[in-house]
Structures are given as C-alpha cells and as structure tokens.
C-alpha cells in the first residue's frame, strides 16, 4: 500500500506540472493572438483614415444599388450608448443608405426610440404596414427590432396558422399542406407586424460575430460582417464593409 502511495505521489506531481505547463502554453498562444489582433486593429485604423479622407479612390463612389436593406445588430450593453447609435445612423445617412434595421437582443434600442428620432433629421420610422420599401429619397427609413420580432413572433405566427387550420378544418378537405408552407408563415408574420424585408447586409457591432437572435426568418441570404465594438466604430471601416458587400455575387444555391 505504502509503495503504491509513493508511486502515486510523483505521478500526481508530474500530472500537476504537466497541467500547469499546458495552461501556460495556452495563455501564451492567446497572448500571441491578442497581439496579432491588436496589430490588425492598428492597420484597420490606418485603413479607415485613408478611406474616410478620400485617398483610396475606389471607396469614393459606392454603388448602393445592391444594398436595398441594411441591418445592424448592436450588443445591448453597447446599445445603451445612444449617442454612438445616433452617430452611426448619421454616417449611414451621409453615405446614402436609405433603409436600416437596428436590432439588439434586449430591446434597448426600441426603448431609446424617441431619443434617436429626436436627434436626427431626415429620419422616418419604418411603418409595420409598409408593403414595399418606400422610395423616399430624402429620409432614412429606420426599423427597430428586438427578440419579440424574432423567435417570439414565429411562435405567435405558429398560433395563427394553427387557428387557420382550425377555422378551415370543417370546410375544405386536405388543406393541411396548404397552410403549413413558408409563404403562409411569411404572410402570418406580416399580419403580426413582425415582418420587415430581408436584409442584404448585416453589420454586427459587438465583441463576437453572432446575430444575437436577429429574426431568423429574415436572415436567409444575408451577408454577416463583424465590425468590432460600437465604442471603436470608424467611418472608413463602415464604408469598406459596404464596398466589399457590393462586390459579392450570390448563387442562391444554384
């Protein structure tokens, strides 16, 4: 018994040293990576300066024809800085984007709706009953979204479809397959006022490149781009993201 304990002692010690060394190596790897990201961040800042000062010609004339609808996801903690959000919308308006959807996962932006509308001229709230995107050249059409327009709206739409089935079940035969279709879902979401257009481009302002629960029904072919934190947002990088989007070509599965 004593000898096995003696064997266990050095084995245990070796395991602990091994584990500690691995942790050290892991932290070292991540330190290197953080340094790389820091350097990339500096390069990004220089790039942004060059773009916004107009020195890089290709960014000066953005072809916004392809960008019919832009969505922006902001991390809720960052969305509380309403001044930053207002600045971002002002930039988008200056660039010439006409339709924007702002989303955050706690509904903070919806609560700051009045503060946002107050500070910005040439802005109009997207009406839920708008069937097609209004061709308003002067104003920026703004939609504010939250999780209630996403998964929760899908649950409500499900109940509408269920109700429709119950309504029709005593009338026509075999309508089940006609009710549970994507088209009927889209119609039900529209009826609930939770259906905006599908964004062409989604910019994520936050620590990670996730859509944080943006209405999943609308994200099918949306390009998702990570912009970093809202605190360090840059005009040049915004233009660069939009420019890169205009170069994308989609097959839509074909």
């Amino acid at each position: 018994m004593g000898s096995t304990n003696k064997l266990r002692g050095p084995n245990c010690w070796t395991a602990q040293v091994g584990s500690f060394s691995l942790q050290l190596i892991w932290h070292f790897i991540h330190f290197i990576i953080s340094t790389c990201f820091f350097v990339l961040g500096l390069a990004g800042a220089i790039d942004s300066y060059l773009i916004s000062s107009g020195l890089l010609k290709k960014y000066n004339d953005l072809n916004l024809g392809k960008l019919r609808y832009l969505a922006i996801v902001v991390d809720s903690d960052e969305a509380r800085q309403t001044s930053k959000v207002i600045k971002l919308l002002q930039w988008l308006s200056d660039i010439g984007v006409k339709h924007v959807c702002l989303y955050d996962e706690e509904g903070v932006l919806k609560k700051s709706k009045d503060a946002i509308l107050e500070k910005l001229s040439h802005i109009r709230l997207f009406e839920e009953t708008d069937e097609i995107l209004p061709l308003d050249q002067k104003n920026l059409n703004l939609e504010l979204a939250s999780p209630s327009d996403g998964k929760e709206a899908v649950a409500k739409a499900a109940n509408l479809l269920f109700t429709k089935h119950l309504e029709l079940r005593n009338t026509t035969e075999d309508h089940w397959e006609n009710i549970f279709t994507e088209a009927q879902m889209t119609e039900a979401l529209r009826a609930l006022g939770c259906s905006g257009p599908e964004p062409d481009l989604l910019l994520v302002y936050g620590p990670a490149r996730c859509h944080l629960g943006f209405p999943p029904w609308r994200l099918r072919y949306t390009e998702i781009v990570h912009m970093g934190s809202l605190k360090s947002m840059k005009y040049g990088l915004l233009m660069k993201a939009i420019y890169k989007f205009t170069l994308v070509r989609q097959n839509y599965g074909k």
Partner: protein
Amino acid sequence: MQHGSSSSSKFMGTICGFLRKCLFKALSAGPIPSHIAFIMDGNRRYAKRRNLAEGDGHRAGFSSLMTILGYCYDLGIQHTTVYAFSIDNFKRRPDEVQCLMDLMVEKIEELLKTGSVLDQYGIRIYFIGNLKLLNENVQIAAEKAMKATASNNKAVLLICVAYTSRDEIVHAIERSCEQKLDEANAFAGNEEIKVMTGQLDELEVPTSPSNCGVKRVKGMEMKNGNFKHVEQGSHQEKSDDIEKKHKYPFIKLVDIEKNMYMAVAPDPDIVIRSSGETRLSNFLLWQTAYCPLYTPDALWPDMGLWHLVWAVLSFQRSYSYLQKKKKQL
C-alpha cells in the same frame, strides 16, 4: 529507394500525429466547443481551378470532410453538423443533383462497412432535413445509416440534406400543431370543437424574461382564410381564458424548439463556412443566435487543421462573452 521514401513519409506522419496531439492537448487547456457546424462551400470552384470534373470536386470535398471530422473528434468535439445539400440546391442542373445523390449513397455504403471511421470513433449519424424530398434510394440509405449507428454514443454527426432553416421552422410548427391537436383530443375525447368565429382578440403571449413585460398582438381578423389587420380591440382576454374558449392549447416557443430537426443536438458553438462567403444561406438560422460565424477563404477541399485550430482559438477568445449572453436568456 521507394521503400525508404515510404518509411520516411510514415515517420513524418507519426511525427505530425504526435505534434498534432500536443497541439490539441494545449488547446484543451481552454474551453473546447461541444458542437461545430460546417458549411462545405467551394467544391465546384476547386474542381474548376484544377481542371477536374465537377464530381471530382465533390469527392475531394468528401475526403476533406473525413479528415476534418477526425480532427474534431480527436480534439473532443462531440457534435459535428455538416450542410451537405440544401433544398435550394435542387435548383441545380439535374445531372449534377443526381451525381451528388449517387455520391451520397456511395459514401454512406462505404462508411457503414465495419472498421470504418464510424466504428472507430463510436459516431452516431443523423440525417437532418426534409428527407421526403430525396430519391427513394437515398432515403433508404439514410435510414439504414441512422439505424446502424443508433447504438453509438461517443460522438454525433449530423448531416443536413434537403435542409433549409425555413423548412425546418415550418416543419416544427406543423409537428407542434399535430401534437396540440392530439393533446386536446386526448383530453376532450371525440367532442367536435366549435369552429373559431374568426375574431381573435388580443392574445397575451408569455414572453422570455429578457423582454419587457408581455407582448400583445394587434387584433386579427380572418376573412376568407386571409389575415387582415384590424384596429386594436378594446376587449382583452387572459391567455388561459382564450385557451378555454378555443379548447386547444397554444403553441409555445418551447414546443417549436423541441420539434426542430436539430433538437437532437445542442446549439452549435461555431459555424465555419469555407471559401470566404459571409452568409448562412438558410442554415441553422434559428440555432446560431450566440454562435460566431467564421469564414476562412480556403475552399472546402483545401480546409485543414490550421483552419479548425484558428476557429477553436477564436471561439475561446469570445467564450466568456457568449457564456454571459447565454446566461442572460
């Protein structure tokens, strides 16, 4: 000479394997994702660049998939999902679609042979999607694979074929409706319910704690089977009163989620899309709210160890932020 070169390449292989094991051990000092999803994009471009037949691009893609899966399971990633074929892909030329289906059947048969990678890693396979849209031989092969691996419990491979997120959501809603009908019939016996008169008053639907209070739906009206907006009704009913009136329980978010095809696995921790495209293309839109998207430029057959390692390192960087977000749900 040849014998020498084959033994030296074997030696190199062993060294690489050992170094890879060390690397994985170092990575494992931090959080390892339990579920990675792959969008395998770029097979056709790969074939074009190398002047190969299109089918060869997909075959190269399959080899790449096997290699990457091996790395995933060595690293301890339990669930892997791959987007093999979208419902949108049926729009492709019929001969290309047929080629892909034949390749799938061929590879499934290959994998089911004993001693294959499935047995080695104890992998359970699920085929996720609207399988009724597939040819019968593919459906049979898929059922066979799922049945044969049903007792494997070390890792899970989810293969999405004839899948799109929207189709998954609609299917989940359809299943939820069926279940609610069954539930109600089980309680109420064979009573015929009163047909809904067509006026839905404001529905009070319980919302998640993160939302501020309860969301009220605007008054709805059904006319000729179509939905129409009406002005806000003045009469409000509590949701359980509505339930009693309609005699059918409401479909809740949890009902939809448990009927999703992907309910057999936890939500993915990373989505990796090859060939640099930055969209999800109707893949796991519901499940990726807190799942970072990583888009290396490499085409799928060119994807390798370092892309996977980089994806895991990126995941580890945002891990604490995403855990915080998930806890707030």
